[in-house]
């Protein structure tokens, strides 16, 4: 049931233009999860190779609560794509799917009270990112809004200068898997196509939804 964009153009990950000046910070936990993901999917040697390719200033030592430039994240993803021979979009989508349950294990309170991705997704922008902003002041979570669609699903809008809409797709898939509620997503706008935002039209399986 999970569908990607009809024209599955590769999404190039772009670090923030200010990355070389220190960049916009990414939490260390994201790097840790990326390491976990690559190690689990492709093995420890693959991750060591990728790290070697990147030659990061900190030698690849990432501490969860600390913050690091998004350029480092971009470099790791790009190196992973080169080493593993997969597109960036596929890598980010797969990482998003992996990331969702991992994040929920660390922050289970955000999913409490939700039994369906619909209600959960509506709290991403208004509650979860607000709370993340309170706890981690130096982060800049993406701007996510969710409104009801006429067809009964949701329209999710994603805005971030990191242009990680493929990661958002993976997270959506992760949410569907977590709540065991299939969803169909169709990307109707993307900054890479010149739009001012990325937008997803999300439908839930009506039959299963009624049953739940």
């Amino acid at each position, binding site marked *: 049931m999970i569908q990607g964009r009809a024209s599955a153009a590769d999404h190039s990950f772009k670090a923030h233009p200010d990355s070389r000046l220190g960049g916009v910070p990414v939490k260390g936990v994201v790097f840790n999860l990326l390491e976990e993901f690559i190690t689990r999917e492709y*093995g*420890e*040697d693959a991750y*060591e190779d990728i*790290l070697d390719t990147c030659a990061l200033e900190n*030698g*690849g*030592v*990432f*501490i969860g*609560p*600390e913050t690091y430039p998004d350029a480092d994240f971009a470099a790791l993803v790009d190196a992973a794509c080169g080493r593993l021979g997969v597109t960036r979009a596929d890598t980010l989508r797969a990482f998003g799917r992996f990331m969702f349950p991992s994040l929920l294990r660390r922050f289970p309170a955000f999913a409490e009270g939700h039994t369906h991705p619909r209600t959960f997704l509506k709290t991403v922008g208004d509650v979860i990112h607000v709370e993340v902003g309170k706890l981690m002041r130096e982060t800049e979570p993406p701007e996510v809004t969710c409104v009801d669609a006429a067809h009964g699903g949701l329209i999710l809008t994603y805005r971030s200068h990191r242009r990680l809409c493929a990661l958002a797709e993976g997270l959506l898939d992760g949410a569907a898997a977590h709540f065991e509620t299939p969803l169909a997503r169709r990307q109707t706008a993307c900054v890479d196509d010149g739009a001012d935002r990325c937008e997803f039209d999300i439908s839930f399986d009506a039959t299963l939804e009624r049953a739940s």
Partner: protein
Amino acid sequence: MSEAAVRRKLARAEKRIEILETLTEDRTRELYLAMEQLREAAGYLQEIYMTVPGALIVFDRSGQIEAVNDTTSKLLEYEQHELMGQPISTVFEDGATPELTDIEDAVRRGSVLRTEKVCRSKTGQTIPVLLSATLLSDANLYGSARAVVCVLVDIRDRKHLEVELRQAQKLEAVGRLAAGVAHEINTPVQFVSDSIHFLKDAVADFHALMASYRAVCSAVIEGGDAAAPAMAARDKEDEIDLAYLVDNVPKAIERTLEGLGRVATIVRSMKEFAHPDTREMSSVDLNQAIQSTLTIARNEYKYVADVRTIFGDLPLVRCYAGDVNQVILNIIVNASHAIADVVGASGGKGVITVRTRLEDDHAVVDIGDTGTGIPAHIRDRVFDPFFTTKDVGKGTGQGLALARTVIVERHGGTLTFESTLGEGTVFTLRLPVAGQVKAAA
């Protein structure tokens, strides 16, 4: 995994541990400092809370007192623990407890509820207070109000000063009017005096004439010649001009009575105007009160304006009579000054129209003048204390400010005006006939 890779991974893990140790130390130190700062801030706030010179009370949505400070204890003569958990109505006079809906309305308007209330201390003492109340929001509940926080400021001294200010205003008015009143009394006294002198002379003449008549009577009784005394009596009549006296003595008496009546009216009006301040409202004939005020203020307006009164039927109105008289006087004096600015030294006169009527349960008094009118740019300020457009020494800027306080705050009425530049101004007072239910003492 190659040995080199394992070594690199181990090195990273060791580095990570090292960083985490440093991080833990740093965070522990930061946490300690933050806790110290928090403790210091909490102590500082607690000290402010306990010593702020206003009685702070926090009560929950059900009206149960959650917290009070030292000032509350001192003001209301309770120990703090005696108030904890008690209903908030404990500290207010019956019917004076602030309503949660009023506080919510104020907060919704982006404001704070500010109102005068009356508290009752543990020993039964009534204490007028200025209450400011707002909602205490709990941020974790996304803005929903958990409790009400209110500050009570003891305004007994202010109330006392207000009474003194009103009394001072009255004395100032009496002083200002004294010369006019003296003049008003002097005129009838003058013609009463003239009439009395005339009557004194007339009585002396009548005594002389009576002597002539007695001589005629004696001559007739004794059987003597009565013609000569009769002629003398007639001559006396001519001498004293008896016909004139007969015609004018009753008129002199009438004039005397009229003059005395005028003096009596002025004295009664002064007495009514200087109605002693009472803490309770009394039932007042508002038309009579206005007439009295017009009488004693006559010298203020009589050279520049005629007064037209159109009194409607009014029931007795519950009010603080002295204060209402003062308000009417202030407005009439203002009206005469506004008209004087128009007529100047031309000798012409304007008109002050005083009209009363009953509208629903309110007595309404319109006081209109044909003066200059109030320019639009100062209309918002005429009720401000110390605002005046009059020359130095002619107005203190307190008249209308006090008038609004008296009518709006003490009586629960309204005081408004309509003005047209170059045509004049009409001030309208509305007083609840039954008096203000919640009038502050």
